[in-house]
């Protein structure tokens, strides 16, 4: 069964460093998303991406964040200058053209020291 994959599973970085989180959505999906879950808190929407552009973003998704689909398979989230409060589990999700179900990857646990 096709699934969303994410790398790395765990990333540790120093405050102020740039990180890139990678996702490979399900191959025939067209809609892509990033969410995050701070430990013990709700899963929060960050951004949605369709047709090579951001279709919606939350107030969390400020200028420090960017997304890109550099090729036909990868979808990345970049945080330019990480802060302590960026520590969270980051989930990528994708959805096909025919359904509303969003399928999530296993997540990348980001720890900012």
């Amino acid at each position, binding site marked *: 069964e096709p699934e969303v994959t994410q790398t790395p599973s765990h990333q540790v970085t120093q405050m102020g460093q740039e990180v890139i989180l990678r996702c490979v959505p399900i191959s025939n999906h067209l*809609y892509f*998303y990033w*969410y995050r879950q701070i430990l013990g*808190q*709700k*899963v*929060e*929407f960050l951004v*949605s991406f*369709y047709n090579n552009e951001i*279709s*919606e973003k*939350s107030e969390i998704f400020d200028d420090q964040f960017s997304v890109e689909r550099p090729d036909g398979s990868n979808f990345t989230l970049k945080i330019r200058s990480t802060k302590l409060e960026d520590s969270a*589990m980051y*989930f990528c*999700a994708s959805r096909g053209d025919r*359904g*509303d*179900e*969003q*399928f*999530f*990857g*296993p*997540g990348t*646990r980001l720890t900012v020291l």
Partner: protein
Amino acid sequence: SQQGEEDPQALSIQEGENATMNCSYKTSINNLQWYRQNSGRGLVHLILIRSNEREKHSGRLRVTLDTSKKSSSLLITASRAADTASYFCATAPWSSEKLVFGKGTKLTVNP
């Protein structure tokens, strides 16, 4: 506003019993989706129910939706120890791409 608030926050049952989790929301929705999350792991999609549907089944799962009360319930029948996980409802508002998650119900099924 807070969407997708589940209750109870925690539920502990014996294997073989049924587990019912509830979700309430505040705004108009296109659909509502239920997910399972094992500790520290990813979100597994369980079932989607549309705003014009009242009930849906998938295996041992039964989901209901009452749009007049803005609430949904997830019933897991004949629970197993492997069902131990956190369960989240996520609402999809109209004209939005995002899912809005609740805090989840932590289900423990004791063998």
